[in-house]
């Protein structure tokens, strides 16, 4: 299994909003609007969703902490300055307010979400008191060599109590991340993610345990309802993959369907707000 890192660097997008290569996905062109103060005027970075462990805030709180701590003070939203400097006079109501989102809600928790059959996502928040608690258990000597890890448990078909997972693997958390994409790689299974402290001698101390999520299957179900039987050959035709299997190769139905469907989903997945019409190459217009 590979793990998907969420380096904070890769999250910062500085793409200018106005680009000749932009295809307008929305109804209006990607032009600057002076009316809404925080529209597309400038390149900007996405809001931080990763605590600034690498930055000064966290490290001044506890330099030797292996686990990212919540920032000590709320950081302003990246757009706050722009919003506060609202360019237009208010109309009937006050102008845009400058809100910011907190780095921490004072919780110790980890939440898992499904991205697709092969990947899950987890975000978390751990309070310093919880880390202190574990640190006391670990002891100051051993603390120097601990790692913070995500322990990803396969809990398919079991009621997980912390010890009865079918298998698990660990991912070392780096860079003070507070969120991670995990490539579980096996569709149709249930997962629980723990964040915790792993000592050099292999002891694991849980800081928080997530909800259980189940990744969807990526193949045709092997389960057949005998009241609703259908021949493989007919099912292939109905699923639009007929004629692509050699005779006698029907055992590959599931694999073939998987490939065909992935190809279709990737090429035809269309959602709202996109134009079905291609633009002429080299078009200068928005």
């Amino acid at each position, binding site marked *: 299994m590979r793990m998907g890192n969420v380096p904070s660097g890769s999250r910062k*997008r500085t793409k200018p909003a106005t680009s000749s290569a932009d295809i307008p996905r929305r109804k209006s062109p990607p032009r600057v609007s002076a009316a809404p103060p925080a529209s597309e005027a400038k390149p900007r970075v996405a809001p931080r969703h990763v605590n600034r462990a690498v930055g000064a805030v966290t490290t001044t709180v506890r330099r030797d902490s292996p686990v990212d701590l919540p920032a000590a003070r709320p950081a302003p939203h990246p757009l706050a300055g722009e919003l506060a400097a609202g360019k237009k006079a208010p109309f009937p109501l006050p102008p845009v307010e400058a809100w910011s989102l907190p780095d921490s809600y004072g919780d110790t928790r980890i939440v898992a*979400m499904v991205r*697709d059959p092969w990947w899950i996502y987890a975000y978390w928040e751990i309070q310093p008191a919880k880390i202190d608690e574990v640190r006391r258990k670990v002891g100051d000597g051993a603390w120097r060599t601990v790692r913070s890890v995500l322990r990803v448990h396969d809990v398919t078909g079991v009621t997980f109590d912390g010890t009865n997972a079918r298998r698990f693997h660990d991912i070392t958390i780096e860079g003070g991340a507070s969120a991670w994409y995990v490539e579980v790689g096996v569709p149709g299974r249930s997962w629980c993610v723990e964040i915790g402290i792993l000592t050099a001698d292999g002891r694991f101390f849980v800081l928080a345990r997530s909800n259980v999520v189940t990744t*969807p299957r990526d193949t045709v179900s092997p389960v057949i309802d005998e009241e609703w039987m259908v021949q493989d050959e007919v099912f292939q035709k109905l699923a639009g993959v007929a004629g692509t299997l050699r005779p006698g190769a029907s055992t590959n139905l599931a694999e073939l369907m998987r490939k065909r469907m992935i190809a279709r989903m990737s090429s035809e997945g269309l959602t709202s707000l996109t*134009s*079905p*019409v291609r633009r002429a190459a080299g078009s200068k217009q928005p």
Partner: protein
Amino acid sequence: MVRDRTRGYLCMVLHGHLPFVRHPEYPNFLEEKWFYEAIVETYIPLLTVFEGLVRDGVDWRLTMSLSPPLLSMFADPLLQERAFAHIDRLVELSEKEVRRTAPHPEFQRTARMYEAKFRHARALFSDQYGRNLANGFRRFQDSGQLEIVTCGATHGFLPLMETRPEAVNAQVQVAVDCHARHLGRAPTGIWLPECGFQPGHDEVLRRHGIRYFFMDAHGILLGSPRPKYGTYAPVFCRSGVAAFGRDLESSKQVWSALEGYPGDFEYRDFYRDIGYDLDEDYVRPYINGDGVRTFTGIKYHRITGDTLDKAPYDPARAREKAAQHAGNFLFNRGKQVEYLAGLMDRKPLIVSPYDAELFGHWWYEGPDWLDMLFRKMHFDQDIVKPVTAREYLAEYPVCQVSTPSMSSWGHKGYNEVWLEGSNDWIYRHLHKAAERMTELAGRPAGAGGPAGRAVRQAARELLLAQSSDWAFIMKTGTHVGYAVNRTVNHLGRFTRIYDEVNRGAVDEGWLALIEARDNVFPEVDVRAWSA
């Protein structure tokens, strides 16, 4: 006695939605134009098609979702007034255009087309439907040809609310209430936002009287047990709610960027617009009001080819092409149902869902195509018959039980569009706000007092923050600042209300301003979060 020669059914579905965008604090607001353009280019043309079909005795069936934000915007007096002014300006601009293009007959015929269409739109919007287009759709609902289904309260993407079941419940419950209020009857079907389905959510739908929903093909095909009819008949979830799967073949004919009808060279080019092409002084009153160039909706060229040298648009030829394409689509559906009927022991159902705004806004001739399709289906053949999901279930009340698979109709088929690097930061805040909303909803607050008002406003702010549109816009990269702003502002207002209610110190002056600004769902029932 006439023998029924119908071999299969076609269920056309248009998904109508826009995020709730309403900014009374500004006289002009770029993103509000999404709504005005949708009214002029999609919703009024569709209503016009429906009128013509009824007038000419065509037996047609169409399913449309009208999302709660869209219905709320239809009914909002401020947006109605601004929409009317928008249409009025278009009439004025098209009149000028008829004069300006007088020396160029190949352009003037198109200018005349706009003038006639905009005048008609103004009359229909204002005189016929009292500026509220929901009245128009309701008329065809009540006459039985149009089946209107609901959507999430603010188009929240439900699979990413898995850990907050009360938030899923509220998206459905508030939607059902809103639908009934605007359309006079409770919905029996739903278009799940982005077709996002999570097994188990069907139980939430059942609780609120929803009997069926639509989903993408792989959601059905990968369901368990294996669905006997593939996507060509619905399955029942264990809750008894029916799931209808999208047909890929018919979708592709319309949607595909490569082979789809909308890319035909005779059709109107979307990108060449006088808002960009003409002298700035001339178009300034008709663009954003602040000199920023935008689309006006008046476009004179056809797609022509993969070239920047665009030829003049010919409305008559484009309409002829739409008729040909409708014939081609129907011919293919006929072949398809005949083939499928040979594989099935019931009549196959082809479900063809599209974004409503594909018709008219993106694909200008889309409403003509739809018009021709229903006419040809009615007059020219009897193999394929249009049907609603409800009618199909009435004919085949016994369906296989199968649990559909988690899926969406977004790129790659799952949740990635709404959960990736540009937008994943929102979920910890949305989930926390949903948790807090449940806490607020459980408080014994006097419903009429300031605390009760504050809690209801908190519900509106949470719902508005949950629109999947914001995550989608962050991913696609246009209007990102606006989407980030909306998310942060609604969450910020929510949190302030939460803190004030907890402290017992509601700032009523500020609350009144926020109520006036974010005025969606005036009668929101906060018990939806304690269910």
